[in-house]
């Protein structure tokens, strides 16, 4: 069976499930953000695959480009928050940061 749309969607589903697992179990905030990156990449694989397998499709690739931009913004702000959290609390474990203010 030749590689088709379903194969790419399956890879996307696996990536998504792994990302959800990482987000649910990780306690380190940086590793948690890695899980978010996995989820975003899973969505992107699906978007690009759809755009390839429909007639004359380009919209999916445009959306994927926007997702990449948003992921960059998310990573910058998210990691800045993690660094600020580490500076103020001395830890990056999300369970032990429960107060908004010291």
């Amino acid at each position, binding site marked *: 069976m030749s590689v088709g749309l379903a194969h790419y969607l399956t890879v996307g589903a696996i990536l998504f499930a792994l990302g959800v697992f990482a987000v649910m179990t990780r306690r380190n905030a940086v590793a948690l953000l890695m899980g978010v990156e996995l989820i975003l990449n899973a969505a992107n694989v699906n978007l690009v695959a759809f755009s390839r397998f429909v007639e004359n499709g380009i919209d999916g690739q445009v959306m994927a*480009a926007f997702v990449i*931009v948003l992921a960059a913004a998310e990573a910058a702000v998210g990691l800045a928050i993690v660094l600020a959290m580490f500076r103020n609390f001395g830890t990056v474990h999300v369970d032990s940061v429960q107060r908004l203010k010291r």
Partner: protein
Amino acid sequence: MSGDLVFYGFALLTVVSACFVAFSRNVVHAGFSLLFTLFGVAALYAQLGADFLAVAQVIVYIGGILVLVIFAVMMTRIPRGAPRRGLDRMVPAGAFALALFALLYRVITATPWPTAAAAAPEPTTMRLGTALLTDYIFPFEFVSLLLLAAMVGAAILVRERRRSGENGPEAPAADPAGTEEQA
């Protein structure tokens, strides 16, 4: 067919390294596995004929986001006796993720996808640029505004506050020397 073999190779690389990202106990290992995942996804884009996105993935994700992530891993040290994630959390999360995948897979296999006869992939950079500057001009401009806001926000968040007498009670004694390089 050799194209199929290439797909399976890169799909395997992506999935296996993503497993390391999700399961590895060592955050540094997870970060470096993320490199291979992102590269594998870029290769999948290239196979799907999305040449511009494949390059953008390498430049933005691997060159930018991943470097940021690894810097963050290095700047935030983990205390020795940090609690590991226990089975009490892994089992329900694993069951949920598996169920999610089973559902998605069922949908993928059960849906009759309308697939166009796969034409030979051709470069899409020009069409992508045209679409961005015509149909998608508003989101395009908006996203640039958002990037600016994110940049300013990140700079403000990591800024050192050095107002005299304004430091909180015990101003971070555990402040690592490295964090201010980010600012």
